[in-house]
């Protein structure tokens, strides 16, 4: 039985590890400025924890086989422990875990401790059951007022947001069902929600943030690769949670300017 346990534990360990190492199912290719640093730290964590995983499982399998009762008359070795060993592995574990965390915290700080740059492209992202809407402030650089009493989701666009057209700042706001942003520019995202908590998740951008009703949460990211990327809702929001997805299109600055200008022109 000891041998069978060893074989099964080792097989499970090696098969699982294989799929991790072969990256059969893996993080999607990163497309934001932050992705490289995050992925690097992911790899570091992965290697260190992988070593611990394999070592612990291999040791477990080996020990249960090696110390099986062989039917001899001798007793097991009578040991209540080893204090030096306890101290050593406690210290080493603490260094590993805390060290890993402190290393990642500089990336966290650079992503989250600072506000968006003053020249970032602003997009207000609003989640509601079960769609995302994106609003650009227009040439005046100001987002107009919204009024919950004016909301009409069935009419889409501005009406879904409850845009208050009486506010002069609203007149040039561009509302879109698709998020379009220029590449290599910092994008400031202002996250809002109308009804329940949603979460704005773009896997390739390594970007996720809950959109919470009652809050306007400011975040930022910088796309570095043009293309179309899926936006998923990553916080349970009701029966349509699985189909609350959107698209972010990362285009060249010229294409972005053209797109935005065309949308702003429609507002005149």
């Amino acid at each position, binding site marked *: 039985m000891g041998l069978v346990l060893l074989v099964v534990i080792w097989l*499970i360990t090696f098969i699982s590890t294989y799929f991790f190492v072969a990256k059969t199912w893996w993080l999607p290719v990163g497309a934001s400025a932050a992705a490289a640093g995050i992925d690097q730290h992911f790899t570091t964590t*992965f290697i260190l924890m992988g070593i611990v995983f394999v070592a612990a499982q291999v040791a477990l399998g080996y020990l249960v086989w090696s*110390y099986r009762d062989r039917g001899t008359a001798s007793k097991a070795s009578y040991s209540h422990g080893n204090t030096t060993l306890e101290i050593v592995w406690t210290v080493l574990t603490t260094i590993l875990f805390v060290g890993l*965390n402190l290393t990642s915290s500089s990336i966290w700080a650079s992503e989250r401790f600072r506000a968006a740059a003053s020249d970032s492209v602003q997009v207000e992202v609003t989640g509601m059951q079960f769609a995302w809407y994106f609003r650009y402030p227009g040439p005046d650089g100001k987002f107009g007022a919204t009024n919950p009493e004016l909301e009409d989701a069935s009419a889409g666009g501005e009406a879904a947001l409850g845009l208050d057209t009486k506010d002069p700042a609203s007149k040039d706001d561009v509302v879109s069902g698709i998020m379009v942003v220029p590449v290599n520019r910092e994008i400031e995202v202002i996250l809002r929600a109308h009804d329940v908590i949603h979460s704005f998740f773009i896997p390739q951008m390594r970007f996720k943030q*809950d959109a919470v*009703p009652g809050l306007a949460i400011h975040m930022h990211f910088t796309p570095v690769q043009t293309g179309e990327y899926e936006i998923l809702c990553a916080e349970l929001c009701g029966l349509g949670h699985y189909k609350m997805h959107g698209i972010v299109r990362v285009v060249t600055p010229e294409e972005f300017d053209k797109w935005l200008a065309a949308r702003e022109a429609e507002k005149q």
Partner: protein
Amino acid sequence: MAGGTGGGETITMSTHESAVQAAHAHAGPQGFIRKWVFSLDHKVIGLQYYFLALVAVFVGMFLSLLMRIHLVWPTVALPLLGDIRPETYLTLVTMHGTIMVFFVLTTAPQGGFGNYFLPIQIGAPDMAFPVLNMLSFWTTFAGFIVMIAAFFVAGGAPLHGWTGYAPLSAVQSTGPGEGLGADLWIISIAIFCIGALMGALNFITTTLDMRAKGMTMMRMPLTVWAWFVTAILGLLAFGVLLSAGILLLMDRNLGTSFYVPLITVNGQLTGHKGGSPLLWQHLFWFFGHPEVYIAILPAMGLASQLLSVFSRKPIFGYKAMVYAILGIGFLGFMVWGHHMFMSGMSPYTAFAFSIMTMGIGVPSAIKTFNWLGTIWGGRIRFDSPMLFAIGFVSLFVSGGISGPFLAQPVLDIQLHDTYFVPGHFHLIMGVASIFGIFAATYYWFPKMFGRMMNESMARWHFWFSFIGTYAIFMPMHYLGMAGMPRRYSQMTEVAYLHNLIPLQKFITYAAFITIAGQLIFLVNLFWSMFKGKKAVDNPWEATTLEWTTATPPPHDNFGGHTPVVHNGPYEYGVPGAPRDYVMQSDPGIEPAH
């Protein structure tokens, strides 16, 4: 007759004589109702909790099977139930999680085995407050009935997940099931809180005040330490959950706005304003994080016990194990924010929680090293309790390794609310704890029922469960890394998720097979109660006090005689001893000169 634990006569008897003395035995109650329904005997109450959890686990497994089928074949209609709509899937998710966490993982290890064996292992005749104990079981049972009732009311059971985030859970119009069903869900949990608090009261008072002579705190088995610290966690955490539930009921039914800001649902203003959804998360997770330690600590205590018994070796580092249990309990109250890194919480606060979370990995690692150290140099017997204890260690390692990924906010950005998270918590909390329940069953069945379980069926059960649960939950880590979000009722709407359907199908097939394997356990359990081989008083040659009693133990556990404890709980392989184990109540081991 003079009472008290300090007076009385000293009788010298042979250690091999049974502890039951008919002349002094305290007779139990007569009559079916008082003996089996409203019993005050902690052993009967323990069995009541156990069988409640057994029913709950099969309900929970059935719900998860339906989930797995719908996820990979969303258009298939099931027999009897028909089409499963998206909201129904979310109801299954919600009730699966709630029933498993509360009525299985918080019920069987603590209410079940803790009730049965804590008093015996410390040499007490019963719990401190037997009437309260009886009430705690029936309160928990009532909570279960209310929870099941949620399925059958108008609108059905809620769809807001076992975590019940507001405003989804706080406003009745946010979805089907969020009406009366959600109210019943909250009320059921509130009832459960009260039952759990009653139980915690008993466990703590009993452990502190009713230990037999010689049973110092540092001679208590690690199972007792685990039940004791688990009870303390419950004592501090369930009151907060109750408070969160009260505020939620008020928001839902009295129009208050503790959790609900100004929102519109389906374009309609709800009348709430100014509340904070994050307040719910803070209160819920202040309970919710200690809850996961409540779920796992008893299994950790038992693993320590079984690895020692079946390696015929003392536990490696008993003191370190005790400190680790205390450390996990204490730190468990300081890490709740790691469930909220993406919630809109301040990033500085997130950093603080993340450091504490990495810190709590240290005592868990210490315990793992000590388990390996216990096996090292042992003479391992591969009886079924040991198989599940070894399986527990493997699962705990696997589940624990994914923790440091999630504990770092910068990596949690990618992994939060993906399948990586259920992969992590099912391995380390769900399956590991269930393996603890199985191990406890195989181990203590002979003492509870006087018969042995069938060892051959036990082995089949072990292999189905061990390989099966790895097959189910290890692939979830890959799914999470590839970006599969949680709580999606189907994978048809997002393009890149189509590539992940084959892996999800593999998981579903593995789930079918693993759940089928649990039927072997069910058959074994009931068949052995009536037809199992008769058991001796101490079939495993273990040292703790429950193995000194008759089988099953008499009404007051020790037949009117309280044992006196002379030794620690893990004296196996003592050099010079006549056998390879020395009972806790055997006369003291003199240190070698």
